């Protein structure tokens, strides 16, 4: 067996049987995985205390590659599974990796209710604007008029702003970045894990093989350049004229506040019940 290159990321990967991975050449998922691992590596966390939960889709294949407690669940249900894990063992750091279809379509109900409860989960939504694993069907984040195999004449639906949705539902940490901005992703993941409440990070990703081809976006390098050129930091928005902001991806921590976290509130509820009940 050849020697494993000693980078931080390699200390966190499962080397036996798990590679090569399922992702296509040019896919952003591996880049985001790198950012997640570097964030965790920089936090001095015990990896026995980290649970990575995912649903179904390309990005949801991520947990199998990493050496944490890992749970690859049903389509749309990652946040519900994660809620069970977190509530029974609140000291665990529970990270949900999900895609745009998994999180915002079939799993939308769990997303909004977990945000409303403000349960301490870190949800990382990798948004590639399409259902990649099933071959390119339209998703809730496919842009208006973009093409997909199930939108062959162009998408007539508006796309979901999942960050706004999470904010409206009560998430206390909401951020957006792109796979191109690896350091920014890494910083956000660290901040989200440390944040005591429900955190959502939307990472805009490139799917050159399916989304890119259907929409004539060029290859992976062109799509990475587009992420760089077509996004602006939140801090710059106020300084720019409106026409330069129009149609751009706004990156940054879009919302952050502190309100009572669900597991902490449940612990208080238990104290109250035990003081009042006295049974057993």
């Amino acid at each position, binding site marked *: 067996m050849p020697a494993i290159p000693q980078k931080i990321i390699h200390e966190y990967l499962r080397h036996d049987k798990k590679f090569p991975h399922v992702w296509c050449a040019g896919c952003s998922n591996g880049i985001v995985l790198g950012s997640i691992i570097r964030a965790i590596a920089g936090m001095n966390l015990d990896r026995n205390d980290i649970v990575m939960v995912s649903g179904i889709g390309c990005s949801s294949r991520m947990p199998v590659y990493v050496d944490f407690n890992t749970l690859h669940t*049903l389509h749309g249900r990652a946040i519900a599974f994660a809620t069970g*894990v977190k509530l*029974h063992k609140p000291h665990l750091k529970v990270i949900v990796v999900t895609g745009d279809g998994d999180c915002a379509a079939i799993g939308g109900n769990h997303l909004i209710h977990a945000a409303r409860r403000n349960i301490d989960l870190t949800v990382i939504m990798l948004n590639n604007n399409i259902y990649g694993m099933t071959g390119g069907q339209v998703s809730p984040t496919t842009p208006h008029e973009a093409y997909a195999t199930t939108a062959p004449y162009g998408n007539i639906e508006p796309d979901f702003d999942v960050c706004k949705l999470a904010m409206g539902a009560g998430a206390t940490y909401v951020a957006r970045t792109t796979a191109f901005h690896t350091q920014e992703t890494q910083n956000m993941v660290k901040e989200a894990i440390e944040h005591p409440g429900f955190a959502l990070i939307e990472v805009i990703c490139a799917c050159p093989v399916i989304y890119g081809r259907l929409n004539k976006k060029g290859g992976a390098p062109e799509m990475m350049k587009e992420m760089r050129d077509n996004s602006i930091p939140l801090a710059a928005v106020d300084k720019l004229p409106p026409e330069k902001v129009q149609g751009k991806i706004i990156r940054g921590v879009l919302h952050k506040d502190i309100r009572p976290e669900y597991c902490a509130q449940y612990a208080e509820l238990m104290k109250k019940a035990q003081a009042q009940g006295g049974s057993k």
Partner: protein
Amino acid sequence: MSNSETINPNTTMNNESKTSSTTKVEELQNLKGRKTVLMQGNEAVAYGALDAGCNFFAGYPITPSTEIAEILAAELPKRGGVFIQMEDELGSICAVIGASLAGAKALTATSGPGFSLMQEGIGFARSAETPCVVVDVQRVGPSTGMPTSCAQGDIQQSRWGTHGDSPAIVLYPDSVKESYELTIRAINLSEKYRTCVILLLDEVLGHMREAVRLPDLSNVRVISRVKPTVPPHWYKHYENNEKYPIPLASFGEGYRFHVTGLTHDSLGFPTNKPNEAAEMMARLKKKITYNIRDLVQIESFQMDDAKIAVFAAGITARSAKAAVVMARKEGIPAGLLRPLTIWPFPDDAVRKMLRDVDIVIVPELNQGQLIREIERLVKDRSDSKLIKIQRVDSKLIPPQDILQKIKEVI
């Protein structure tokens, strides 16, 4: 008569004493004051779950199961357990499985429409071999049906409701006392066999009150999952061996294993290899079929010299037993065979019954879900040995109807 093994039979004499100031509700909730109390089937399920060590409940309100959630919402926090009302039944079963993987004894309760929504999760728990219990208090269907009325329409759904091919364990009580006992047994079996165990209740049983004396806690046999003792790098949580149970670590205990609903190898990693898929499917099947004697419970009432047998489960078996008693008073050699475990189906006991008696009457509150299993075991399909009594109008089958049928065929 019930030969449930979870309860020590010498328990009925315990704990007569209690403090005089407790109200009836407090007394019900205070499991130390174990005198005879009037209790609903749904209450019995909730207290059975608590006595079996259930410490996690996630559910969604649905008639006629809601009392189970309401009692556990009050009781679990007192005992350090978690109650959460989820946004739907899809989330409920998934939170239950997640909690179980973190080490909880987890349970949910629902009724037909919610049970349908939980089917995908039930399949996940079976595939990922994760202990959990689903209580389905059946109501009239199809669809929304009649929410406060009784039917036995989920017998086959409890076996085949989830997609794919996987064996099931389903228990079916016929009394409030037995609802308590079989809830404990369901949790015990889920822990022992690492699977989703289903408890079917009839709406009437869920809401019916009977005098019950719960056993003293020290006499309740509680089984918990076996934990691995090997070092983490040796641990295979889906090891193929003939020994059960296979140890299950919990998240956060240093084992860092992978769980997936995809077909997986002995380390839990997804596989497309036919030999590994075959091993997994064989393991899921064998852990049921090799342990039939541990799993199947049958009540045999007046069957020794019976020429006419009634085969019935749940609330219908109550009517059947009354009919058998009336028939015996008139000198008719009738008996009752009642499965407490409906899945795996008690094939051997039914074959014996088919050999021993001339006629089998199968009353049920559906259009033939139990009788088709007996038909499967009848060698000659043209045999007129089987008589059906089926009712789907939300009313129970009264004992007189069964007695009348017994008299017609004798």
